């Protein structure tokens, strides 16, 4: 959809889209929190068939969990709770998967509805003399959306009761020793636990197994045979292209077309923001670091600052190849520490970002965590919105734009009247 209209209207429309998303987040999962909307990416690529329904579930569950544990968290069984106590656990599991699929389809409908709303807005903006037609369209879509969101909310409640979504409920032991579908933070779904398979009953569906196997093989291939990757990368980036308007928010003087690899992006960032410290990590290593974080004055014992040799230095351990990087830490000394995590190791797609005080340390300091300080909590919320904007709008340069946006906060405490007023209004 290429519409040629002036910048002001463009900005206003995008603002409306962002507001809509914010509204949806609030409506759909009040209380459960929904910091990451990366599932929307999957939705626009393919129809919600059962196969991608599974993929949807993983994405949705991945975003649902305010994941604090290591990627290989032990699967905790759900309780036999509420109305579903009378049914055998295999049926519970099947029902849960089914409901997750339904939720996926409702989300797809919501997304299409949002597109229609946006279209109505565009039409109204572009041709103001059209009169009532856009308004009627808008009203109709609004009613549909409300219905979808209501359905989603009730579905969410059902899922919560059955123990799929809520972390605390999962910790109670189940009589049968069976598990609800477990989603690891890196997106892999373990549909049925090993216990069940040992018991000789029907294991994971063939589809799930194939998908898991394919994912495992692809990851291994990427690690050990990076030179064979070219075909794979190309097709992935093509499928992520959106039919959005051509927008260049980055300084036109910059030659951003060469920033295709992670080392390049980090190198150019280092040049532009001199007092920024960049560190890269593999996912598990970040967790180790998070609990031993100290304030910026003690950073001296860590080697950092990225070198342009194609390898990325990792703390005092050694070098980390760009393909293994899963977490980036940006530290502006005495101002903030931002943690960005990638969708999977080696990709350049950020999927979560969070801000913290440079003095904070602990296992909650990660890309999906929240700071204890209000100011950084607010910035993290903005960051989630910004991330969605960059993912949707500037997919080619998403990481670069996001990192730049983060760095703009280095003047957080030098030009910050807005934040004080916000804090005092608490």
């Amino acid at each position, binding site marked *: 959809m290429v519409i040629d209209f002036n910048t002001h209207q463009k900005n206003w429309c995008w603002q409306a889209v962002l507001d809509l998303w914010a509204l949806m987040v609030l409506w759909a999962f009040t209380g459960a929190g929904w910091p990451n909307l990366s599932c929307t990416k999957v939705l626009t690529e393919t129809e919600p068939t059962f196969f991608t329904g599974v993929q949807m579930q993983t994405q949705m569950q991945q975003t649902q969990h305010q994941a604090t544990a290591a990627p290989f968290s032990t699967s905790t069984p759900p309780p036999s709770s509420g109305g579903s106590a009378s049914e055998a656990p295999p049926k519970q599991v099947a029902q849960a998967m089914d409901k997750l699929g339904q939720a996926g389809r409702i989300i797809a409908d919501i997304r299409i509805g949002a597109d229609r709303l946006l279209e109505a807005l565009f039409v109204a903006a572009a041709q103001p003399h059209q009169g009532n037609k856009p308004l009627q369209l808008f009203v109709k879509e609004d009613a549909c959306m409300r219905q979808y969101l209501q359905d989603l909310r009730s579905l969410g409640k059902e899922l919560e009761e059955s123990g799929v979504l809520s972390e605390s409920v999962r910790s109670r032991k189940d009589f049968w020793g069976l598990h609800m579908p477990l989603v690891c933070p890196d997106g892999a779904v373990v549909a049925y636990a090993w216990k069940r398979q040992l018991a000789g009953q029907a294991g994971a569906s063939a589809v799930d197994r194939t998908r898991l196997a394919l994912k495992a093989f692809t990851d291994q291939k990427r690690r050990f045979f990076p030179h064979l990757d070219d075909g794979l990368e190309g097709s992935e980036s093509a499928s992520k292209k959106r039919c959005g308007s051509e927008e260049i928010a980055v300084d036109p003087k910059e030659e951003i077309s060469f920033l295709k690899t992670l080392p390049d992006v980090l190198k150019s960032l280092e040049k532009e923001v001199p007092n920024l410290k960049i560190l890269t990590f593999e996912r598990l290593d970040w967790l180790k670091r998070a609990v031993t974080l100290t*304030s910026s*004055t003690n950073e001296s014992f860590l080697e950092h600052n990225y070198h342009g040799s194609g390898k990325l230095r990792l703390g005092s351990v050694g070098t980390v190849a760009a393909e293994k990087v899963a977490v980036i830490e940006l530290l502006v*000394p*005495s*101002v903030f520490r931002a943690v960005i995590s990638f969708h999977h190791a080696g990709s350049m797609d950020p999927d979560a970002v969070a801000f913290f*005080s*440079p*003095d904070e340390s602990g296992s909650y300091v990660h890309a999906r965590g929240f*700071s204890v*300080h*209000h*100011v*950084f909590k607010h910035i993290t919320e903005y960051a989630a919105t910004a991330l969605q904007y960059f993912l949707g709008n500037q997919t080619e340069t998403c990481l670069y734009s996001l990192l730049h946006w983060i760095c703009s906060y280095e003047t957080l*405490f*030098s*030009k*910050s*009247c807005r*934040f*004080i007023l916000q*804090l*005092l209004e*608490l």
Partner: protein
Amino acid sequence: MPIRCILHWQPNQGTVVNSQVLNEISQCVETLNGVKEGRCKASLTFYRPNLRDQSVTIDFPRDFLGISMLELPNKYFFIIRGQKIVLEADSSILLIMEKLQSYKSKVALNFEGVLYKLGDFQIRVIKVVPNQAESLRGIMVEIEYLPISSIEKSKQIMEEFIDIWKEIVAKKSLAGQFMHAEPNYAEYGLGDNYTSQHTAVQYAAALAQLIQSAQVRN
């Protein structure tokens, strides 16, 4: 460590500080939606050298202070304002001093405060009372900003908060105002990263200001 700024209350000429003023100030904090969280306490002691020959006292520093804070029970701070020295010691130094008997405690003051939480800020409303008596000698307000530890980076935020605070207090038309005198930390050899030594220096400086203004009035 989070940054702290101490403001001391300067009563107008001819007036004294009393508990009414203290109540009004506490109310100011509550109008900002401050939530009472607890109490805090610190005590400050003026030391005088224990000499047989009293004429030699001029060779010794007049303003040798010792500060202890309830939130740091293992530490004791010494300050000599004249020479801009601050020292952080273990609290067992008090035992040593008692055994040595080289310094005697001249005056002891308590800083008793109530802690309020406002978002990312914390405010302590502190009354200065002598150790043995209950009479109110002065009022201090300690403002703490939790997210960052760099004094330089937090300067702007603190100044703006202090301005807002002064405005709110001014609305109550009390007989006095809050003054903020930022000590020169570099002279004490302290860096940009805030520590409890900075707090001790601020306490000493604020107290000196209170004493000075009391002397001017009398």
